[in-house]
């Protein structure tokens, strides 16, 4: 049974992630009064990249691209198998770490600046992600997703401020403008693609596929706040992602200083207020 779930996750997640990316690009184009690419464009892009020559500037660079994919797959599988949320966050961090190491291994200034900015991004979003998980622990008494799903009321009612903070860092994690400064999405050229500048062909395709897995994982994480009602969860995920696309299109790119300040001061503040509130409500 578990093997079937794992196989289904590994096969279905990139399909869903790719379709989300396709819908994203069409909505983005419509917001800019363009027709936009076909829905399957992300799949064409990745298949094309898989058929291209792989130019690597260092020996271990392609290995890190594979590791980024592998760790993202493992993270998503752990989530679907309803394992421990803290472990899932650590695995997610390991995935990003391999991307940073890959960028650092190439002797390119843009790649290195991209890697450093990604480290700052980790510094910005990680406390909020961990706070969300700790908030869920205070409400349900467990870090395990299987226990969290057994709670018969909506986590969002207890953790509204943490959900707001989570959606804020979701922008960083999905690399959407205003926080896409370590690497940017199609059509944008921040740092000449920053982290991924030295990747080409199949390695770049792997990073793209890994990002699809990551997107699915993060959206499922957002859905966890509404887990007791499937329809509400799906609606919340859709609204959440649409808001990300909207912000992506209306916001200019900010500096890392603003990102760090806005996540650490107001972001962490509302997260702590929410955590103290649920702690008093359930434990005092």
């Amino acid at each position, binding site marked *: 049974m578990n093997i079937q779930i794992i196989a289904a996750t590994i096969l279905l997640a990139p399909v869903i992630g790719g379709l989300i990316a396709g819908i994203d690009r069409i909505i983005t184009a419509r917001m800019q*009064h363009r027709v936009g690419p076909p829905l399957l464009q992300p799949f064409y892009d990745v298949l094309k990249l898989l058929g*291209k020559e792989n130019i690597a500037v260092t020996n271990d660079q392609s290995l890190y691209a594979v590791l980024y994919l592998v760790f993202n797959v493992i993270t998503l599988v752990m989530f679907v198998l309803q394992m421990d949320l803290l472990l899932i966050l650590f695995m997610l961090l390991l995935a990003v770490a391999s991307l940073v190491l890959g960028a650092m291994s190439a002797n390119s200034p843009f790649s290195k600046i991209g890697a450093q900015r990604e480290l700052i991004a980790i510094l910005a979003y990680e406390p909020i992600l961990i706070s969300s998980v700790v908030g869920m622990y205070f409400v349900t008494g467990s870090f395990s997703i299987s226990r969290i799903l057994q709670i018969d009321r909506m986590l969002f009612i207890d953790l509204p401020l943490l959900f707001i903070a989570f959606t804020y860092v979701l922008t960083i994690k999905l690399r959407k403008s205003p926080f896409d400064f370590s690497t940017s999405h199609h059509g944008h050229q921040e740092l000449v*693609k920053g982290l991924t500048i030295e990747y080409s062909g199949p390695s770049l395709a792997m990073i793209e596929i890994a990002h699809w897995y990551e997107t699915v994982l993060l959206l499922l994480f957002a859905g966890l706040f509404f887990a007791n009602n499937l329809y509400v969860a799906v609606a919340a995920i859709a609204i959440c992602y649409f808001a990300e696309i909207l912000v992506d299109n209306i916001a200019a790119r900010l500096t890392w200083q603003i990102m760090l300040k806005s996540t650490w001061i107001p972001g962490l503040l509302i997260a702590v207020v929410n955590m103290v509130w649920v702690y008093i409500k359930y434990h005092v």
Partner: protein
Amino acid sequence: MMGILQTAATKSPWIVHFDCGSCNGCDIEILACLTPLYDVERFGVLNVGNPKHADILVVSGTANYRNARVLRNVYDQMPWPKAVVAVGACASTGGIFRNCYNTLGGVDKVIPVDVYVPGCAAKPEAIMEGVLQAVQVLEKRKETGETYAG
């Protein structure tokens, strides 16, 4: 499986644009293709800034002694299969700068060019057609498994 890879290669041409000292006329027309009026993303075309991500090199302007090395370098950094489109009279033949003491002539003096787009400045419609013809060149290279020629 190889068939799917071949179809995908024609559906997602990413271009990198290099300006060999053009008067900016052709560059403006190339960028006009990205605007809502022409919207080349309909064909999956993306303007990437990085030659390592690109399939098609779009060059405007006359090749000269100063930029030949850079042009060659950008071309060499692109992964195979790749194609080159020379946009405008200057990039195709040297244009009005042909036979100047500092110029080499068209960009085909430096790198192999697959498609020539005429015009001074070239029209966006012509540039789009040139890029889509370069896609056919890419497809043929993919089919025949033609290796690095430069």
